[in-house]
């Protein structure tokens, strides 16, 4: 079972992890694994050609093999887990309705929902090939602070866009490439909305360059690593 691969050794946990998990509903990550898997059993069609997990999972170390399409999707799944957990925590924070005006609450709730859809969709598409649920470390984020939340959101959304842009070339299957394309443009829409909200809607912040970055998995994972308890690395990149 996936849950046995989560490593909750006390030495690895951020001090506030238990509170975080409660707030984020991430105690439910393990439950989600079960529920999505049973969802599959109820008739979700598995894409043809998926193999058993390609990723190497050893202790808290996860190595993604980018020569395998399933691990390119696992890379996306890891990033979507991070984003979903972040926005779930944002919206669940007691200060959410006081820290953000109504329009920004609407926006952040929608983005949370989209990231939850991306996360759980990828998990279902991956089926038994999915990596374990990840444990976030958000100790550097002040969830009651609008500036802290929006700055982190901007980082995550721009990182997500650059990650999909940079990973697409590893995919061998057209249907997976199309799925990645369907998701990355929504991440770009998020990035634009967050950037405008943070830096000024009537500025050029929504799209700082004519060409978005396409970052390598190694670069992206280095940037994401401080927010994830497990260690994730990439091979064959």
């Amino acid at each position, binding site marked *: 079972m996936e849950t046995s691969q989560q490593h909750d050794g006390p030495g690895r946990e951020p001090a506030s992890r238990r509170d975080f998990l409660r707030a984020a509903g991430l105690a439910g990550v393990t439950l989600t694994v079960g529920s999505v898997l049973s969802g599959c059993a109820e008739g979700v069609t598995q894409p043809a050609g998926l193999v058993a997990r390609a990723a190497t999972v050893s202790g808290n170390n996860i190595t993604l093999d980018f020569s395998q399409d399933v691990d390119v999707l696992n890379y996306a799944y890891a990033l979507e887990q991070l984003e979903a957990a972040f926005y779930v925590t944002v919206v669940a924070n007691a200060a959410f309705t006081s820290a953000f005006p109504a329009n920004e609450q609407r926006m952040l709730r929608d983005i949370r929902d989209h990231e939850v859809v991306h996360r759980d969709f990828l998990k279902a598409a991956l089926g038994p090939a999915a990596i374990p649920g990840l444990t976030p470390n958000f100790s550097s984020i002040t969830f009651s602070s609008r500036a802290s939340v929006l700055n982190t959101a901007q980082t995550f959304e721009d990182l997500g866009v650059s990650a999909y842009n940079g990973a697409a070339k590893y995919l061998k299957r057209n249907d997976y490439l199309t799925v990645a394309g369907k998701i990355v443009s929504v991440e770009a829409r998020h990035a634009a909305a967050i950037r405008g909200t943070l830096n000024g809607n009537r500025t050029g912040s*929504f*799209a700082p360059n004519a060409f978005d970055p396409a970052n390598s998995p190694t670069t992206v994972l280095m940037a994401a690593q401080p927010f994830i308890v497990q260690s994730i690395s990439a091979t064959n990149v």
Partner: protein
Amino acid sequence: MDSQLPILRALEASDPEVAGRISTQVVSRRSALKAGAGASASLGMALRIGSAPVALAAFASEAFGQTRLPAVVVNVLNYALVLEELESRFYIAGVAAGVVPAADLTIFTTIRDHEIAHVAFLRNALGAQARPSPMFDFTAKGAYADVFSNYNTFKAVSQALEDTGVRAYKGQAPALRPYKDILTAALTIHSVEARHAAEIRRLRGNFEDTEPFFEGWITEAQTDVPGAAGNYAGEDNTVHAGVDATTLSYTPAVTRKEVTEAFDEPLTQSQVIALITPFFA
């Protein structure tokens, strides 16, 4: 960020196939860089734009040789070029006509300049195989007769063009998949078009983020842009890579509306050409 990488490191991350072609042409990568930077207008252009993937794509066209660009690449890049010419000339004309109020000018000059950069990139990549720009009728044969005098019309047409541009690039990803550097370059444009679309959608709702029309994302297949139903047709699809995303159980719970917002949908070349044909003079 990778976009600030020195060109040397960018090339080291290049598609091995292209790197191989480069290495057959010059003795070393370093001298390739030196020769390329000195002699190549397209690489220089790409460097000024400042994106590593773009530099790679420009270099790729040189590595392939412009007369040896694969036919599918020529086809897709010329298709993209028509869309980018339409967009860039639309914004150039709109801004010049004064339809955009001063408070919003930065938004539209930013978008305009991006589209101009996209056109320049595509023309450089295609070289002599770039098709000349069509002549455009931005009223779409009178459907948007006041597009350059009525700001609401201008914004609505802008939104439709951007959302359609996103769908158009997305639809070409499989065709470009064997040409990894070109694919990557196209995707770095694709996501910028999505940023443009989100900004214009939100602007049209005065940044109040009200659904279903004025959020940055597309709800179901809904639009309030007159005559643009076809541009949004199919955006309510929920089946992706064989998985119907509405059949999953989400934690926390999510409605169908958000499921459709979470995925943008591709369009084929023929679908897009049919949609933009009214804009050809």
